[in-house]
């Protein structure tokens, strides 16, 4: 009987304010991390076709600098940055360019330009395109340039070009760097494994970012369900005598990994509504991103692969894999023993990730996880909508301290302006806590998302 299998109390049910510092509200979804968190990172073989999308980051798409028939070496740039807020793209494999065209689907179904490379089957795929350099003598500007040349973007899923954040914006100073190792999304463990297995790279990358931003201290924030990573990093910090870097455990609570929440937990500061972390003198980097910077910048090579969590009930070999960018999704599914007819595939985590309509895509820099569900075991988000019973579950879940119930009701009658003026519509960052906790199955997050889009559209057509 369903009556008995609900948890009596959830983790954190009686967490008192003075027992731990954290942001207000949030939720505790079942995390399912046991599927992958103890498995060492493995490298996935190279697919014989690699399709590298040119638009892998927020900002302008990269411009191709290779043409059909040209041979490329693994690590070589094949597309240059299309602007300051953009990142170049490098060849993930040694092979021959077979096409530069609209090749792969975006997760929403539209086609996007990409470079198709036929992998040389006989190549051992060593990276030969390297420019080793001594980072200790490089200036801050050189380092920022090196990060941009390496094509590094935020690997936590946002895919914002990292070099843009590495210098303090004009008129602002960065005092504290925060490395975000929370990984609060269920299923995902790629950052966890990165922190355990690439600790040195992570600390090196963090130090480089401290040089470029001028930050005097850095904090690595990790959710307390990953105490092994906290221990490991603390030991490394002591061993390397890094007095200006600390590692702190923060309570396990979704969305602890949202940068505004993490800053609140670590520093007790709120980023002003509509503002960025630099407004309170901070910059936040994902630990995976920092680990890549720590490896790529001294070696002088580009970002050609990333660690992806492949998990869910639909794969027989869940784990964290180093996957070359541009690896077609069907190849990934085959390698991880995914069932033939999955019911649902989510890119990213189940709270904020996107379910995709087609398998005709390739991995990009922003894909943190690939979750495969069987048709029988779809994530439990689909039940008929009922009237709001005013239970306040959504209000008590919203980390931005909004009133999602009210926002949902106003969205139903298209009072978007009122939602914005009176109920802080634009503060919502679509974390999904409200929808998750609503017993009436009201798709609050979706309603809010639509309202935000319509407000933006109106602003655009007016301006």
């Amino acid at each position, binding site marked *: 009987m369903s*009556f008995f*299998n*609900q948890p*009596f109390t*959830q983790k954190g049910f009686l967490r008192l304010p003075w027992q731990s510092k954290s942001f207000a509200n949030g*939720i505790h979804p079942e995390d399912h991390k046991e599927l992958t968190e103890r498995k060492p990172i493995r490298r996935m073989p190279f697919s014989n076709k690699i399709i590298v999308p040119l638009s892998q980051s927020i900002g302008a798409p990269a411009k191709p600098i290779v043409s059909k028939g040209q041979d490329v070496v693994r690590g070589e740039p094949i597309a240059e940055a299309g602007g300051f807020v953009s990142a170049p793209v490098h060849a993930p494999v040694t092979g021959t360019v077979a096409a530069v065209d609209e090749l792969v689907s975006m997760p929403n179904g539209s086609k996007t330009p990409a470079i198709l490379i036929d992998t040389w089957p006989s190549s051992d795929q060593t990276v030969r395109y390297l420019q080793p350099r001594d980072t200790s003598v490089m200036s801050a500007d050189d380092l920022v340039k090196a990060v941009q040349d390496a094509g590094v973007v935020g690997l936590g899923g946002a895919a914002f070009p990292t070099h843009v954040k590495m210098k303090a914006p004009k008129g*602002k*100073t960065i*005092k504290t760097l925060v490395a975000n190792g929370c990984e609060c999304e269920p299923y995902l463990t790629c950052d966890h494994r990165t922190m355990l297995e690439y600790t040195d790279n992570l600390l090196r990358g963090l130090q480089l970012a401290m040089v470029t931003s001028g930050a005097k201290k850095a904090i690595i924030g990790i959710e307390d369900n990953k105490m092994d990573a906290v221990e490991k990093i603390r030991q490394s910090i002591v061993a390397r005598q890094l007095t200006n870097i600390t590692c702190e455990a923060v309570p396990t609570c979704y969305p602890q990994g949202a940068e505004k929440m993490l800053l*609140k937990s670590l*520093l007790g*500061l*709120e980023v*002003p*509504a509509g503002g960025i972390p*630099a407004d*309170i*003198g901070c910059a936040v980097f994902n630990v995976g991103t920092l680990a890549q910077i720590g490896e790529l910048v001294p070696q002088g090579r580009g970002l050609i692969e990333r660690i992806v969590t492949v998990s869910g009930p639909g794969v027989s070999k869940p784990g964290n894999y180093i996957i070359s960018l541009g690896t077609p999704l*069907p190849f990934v*599914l*085959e390698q991880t023993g995914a069932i*033939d*007819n999955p*019911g*649902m595939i989510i890119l990213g985590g*189940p*709270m*904020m*990730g*996107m*379910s*995709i*309509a*087609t*398998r005709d895509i390739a991995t990009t820099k922003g894909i943190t996880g690939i979750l495969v569900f069987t048709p029988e075991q779809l*994530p*439990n*988000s689909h*039940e008929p909508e*009922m*009237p709001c*019973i*005013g*239970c*306040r579950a959504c*209000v*008590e879940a919203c*980390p*931005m*301290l*909004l*009133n999602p119930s*009210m926002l949902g009701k106003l969205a139903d009658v298209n009072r978007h302006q009122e939602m914005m003026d009176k109920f*802080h519509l634009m*503060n919502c960052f679509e*974390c*999904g*806590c409200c929808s998750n906790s609503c*017993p009436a*199955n009201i798709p609050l997050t979706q309603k809010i998302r639509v309202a935000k889009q319509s407000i933006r559209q109106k602003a655009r057509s007016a301006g």
Partner: protein
Amino acid sequence: MIKQTPLTIRTSPHLKKGLTVPQIMRNVVYALLPVCAWAVWQFGISALAMIIVTTLSCMATEQLFTAISGKKSTLSDYSVVITGILLALTLPPGFPLWMAAVAGFVAVALGKMLFGGLGQNPFNPALVGRAFVQSITTWTPGFLPERFASFIPSSLALPFMSPADSSDWIAGQVDAYSSATPLSLFKFEQVTTSTQDLLLGMVSGSAGETSALLVLLCGGFLIARGIMSWKIPCAVILGALLTATPFWLMNADVYPTPLFVIFSGGLMLAAMFMATDMVGTPLTPAGIWIYGLFIGFLTVIIRLFGGLPEGAMYAVLVANALAPLIDSVTQPRAFGTRLKQQSGEEA
């Protein structure tokens, strides 16, 4: 190449917490069952008959209204069952059954369906039903202070008025139908009932009002399961204590002890099961505290200074009416909108 079958697409978040509205409501029903059982034990078959009559009447009314408006039946969300049971628990056990049925009809028709059904009702439907019969039936002895002192003529409940266990011990302990309620005793005769009796329910009163301890335990069960927030019951009780204590300190002869106040009458039932009815409560974190404290405060004021011995019911109704107002004046401060903006100097 794998054969392509359509993939399911949904919007994020893809995970849901397990609870659904029918589950919540069903759990409330479970939590009310022990209270019902106690009422039946204490007042006999007539209490059982009344619980059945009001519940059926409420369910039939809801079914009737959904059928008329051509909607799908909403009985399966269990909320109307709660209304029926709560209504029975607020009525005196000797209440005529046909009037209980009318109360059930009014509760659901006026209190709920007229406003659009589940989620739309500003007032707790059970209390609407109870207030309605109380206001139109002043001629019935069912609500008189001495309503337990004598049999009620022409009551359909009459044939059932015998205790479940008529042994002498029970008859001696459970004196329910031969005495006035502790609240009216106190109000009209300045007689206090021992807190222990109030806790255990060895007193007379409306069917569900008698064992404060049982109500407390049943509410605690819901709180422990994460189905109900502890804040509103706490706020109501706190409000009552804070209001009653000064009076008691000023003149202990005239005013009852704070413990008597919170354990007597329908206060506990109101705090646990009426005030917490989610639909009519404010949504904001500060709002529910104001709402709860206000109910506690108003209950005590009505009891001490109003014409009625019992005040919890009206207090909840008044607070329900104020909920939208409380909501609008207690909008939470959204994250990052502190009045004094933090400057870049910090961190």
